[in-house]
């Protein structure tokens, strides 16, 4: 019974693998909750920010901010790509990258060049191999990403936009739909369309309080008192808005990462269980065959005597 021993070793190794995947699955399951809590906690800021921008869009703003102006000629586009730091999360990153590559190829076909800012180890590695122009990267954000960690990369992209080096900026991340579904998502970040901001502020968001006074106010012309002046305030508001959008994308992606890892690890554990069952069956058969053979040998030996 030479085979039996090998099969037993194999079974043990699969069992060890299953232990690891089980543990990873459970760790991810608990981290999803935390990531979702973070996502929820960051929502009020973005919602209020959108309202403020909606108000600015409604108000008589004498100053047109470059972030709000659509540029006609697009010669170069920027991508802010949010990925995970670690692997073992199913097809999460590769789905996102595949979608991105298709888009990038379209731009390149039109003769538009591409700048990339990568957030997360996976995107950094991927776009390094691809030899695209990577102008900024942020990795190792951890389980509780901070806005501070993102300021740098965002500023790189905003500076490029302000200097006219890129004419459009897109934000790519995995949208957390629910635990089973994460959708790769590419959205336009700059220029901010005022219409989108308005729609978002007027749309059915989870507003805690109804705002009766605001809707009445919209009918007639009004403007803010700006301190010190509209330009500085708008600069500030829009920069923070972009930062909050990217921050939220990072959180969405974090939740997606854990969800995808949990699902991937669950199916890995299930597969390991199936494999162990099959191997056990083979092992038992081999053992039975060996016993039968021994008996028949003994019997035939006894018969020969």
């Amino acid at each position, binding site marked *: 019974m030479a085979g039996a021993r090998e099969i037993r070793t194999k079974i043990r190794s699969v069992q060890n693998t299953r232990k690891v995947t089980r543990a990873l699955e459970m760790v991810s399951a608990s981290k999803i909750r935390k990531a979702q809590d973070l996502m929820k906690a960051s929502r*009020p800021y973005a919602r*209020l920010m959108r309202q403020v921008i909606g108000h600015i869009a409604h*108000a008589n703003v004498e100053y047109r901010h470059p972030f709000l102006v659509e540029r006609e000629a697009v010669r170069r586009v920027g991508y802010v790509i949010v990925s995970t730091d670690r692997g073992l999360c199913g097809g999460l990153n590769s789905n996102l990258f595949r979608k991105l590559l298709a888009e990038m190829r379209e731009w390149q076909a039109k003769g538009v060049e591409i700048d990339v800012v990568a957030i997360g180890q996976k995107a950094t590695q991927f776009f*390094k191999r691809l030899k695209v122009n990577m102008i*900024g990267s942020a990795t190792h954000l951890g389980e509780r990403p*901070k806005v501070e960690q993102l300021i740098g*990369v965002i*500023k790189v992209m905003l500076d490029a936009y302000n200097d006219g080096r890129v004419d459009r900026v897109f934000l790519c991340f995995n949208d957390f739909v629910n635990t089973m579904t994460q959708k790769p998502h590419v959205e336009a970040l700059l220029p901010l369309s005022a219409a989108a901001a308005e729609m978002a502020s007027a749309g059915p968001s989870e507003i805690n309080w109804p705002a009766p006074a605001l809707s009445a106010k919209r009918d007639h012309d009004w403007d803010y008192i700006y301190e010190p002046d509209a330009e500085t305030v708008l600069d*500030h508001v829009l920069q923070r808005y972009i*930062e909050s959008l990217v921050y939220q994308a990072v959180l969405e992606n974090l939740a997606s990462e854990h969800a995808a890892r949990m699902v991937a690890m669950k199916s890995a554990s299930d597969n390991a269980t199936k494999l162990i069952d099959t191997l056990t069956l083979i092992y038992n058969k081999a053992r039975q065959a060996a016993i039968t053979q021994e008996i028949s040998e003994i019997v035939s030996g006894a018969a020969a005597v």
Partner: protein
Amino acid sequence: MASTIRCDIVSAEAEIFHGDAQMVVATGEMGELGIAPRHAPLITRLKPGQVRVILENGEEQFFYVSGGILEVQPQVVTVLADTAIRAADLDEAAAKRAKEDAERALADRSDAMEIAEAQAKLAEAVAQLQALERLRRSLKH
């Protein structure tokens, strides 16, 4: 009628306060601001400092913000607080770091991808050596 004003204080990472207030006092860029109900629409940057909220029952609550934006509507005050100390040169430094990270990642030859590649090449070389060894031995016999 409205003797209170709604007050929201949020940062990008968490909701800090929401509720009704008699008055909200904050340090704007141009100086101290006291916002009472039915204040004219106003928007300003905040300096690092305290935001004082006087609640309906006269109780006061203090919040420290390291900068941010204050938006005032007649019935609503919104404080969008920064989570970090921000200054132009600090932002500049962060941007520089991000660029350097990217450059380092591009220059770094030792990421996981390349280790795997090198290992594959090593395995191939070992296999070739073994094949050669076997060939040599079979020729000797």
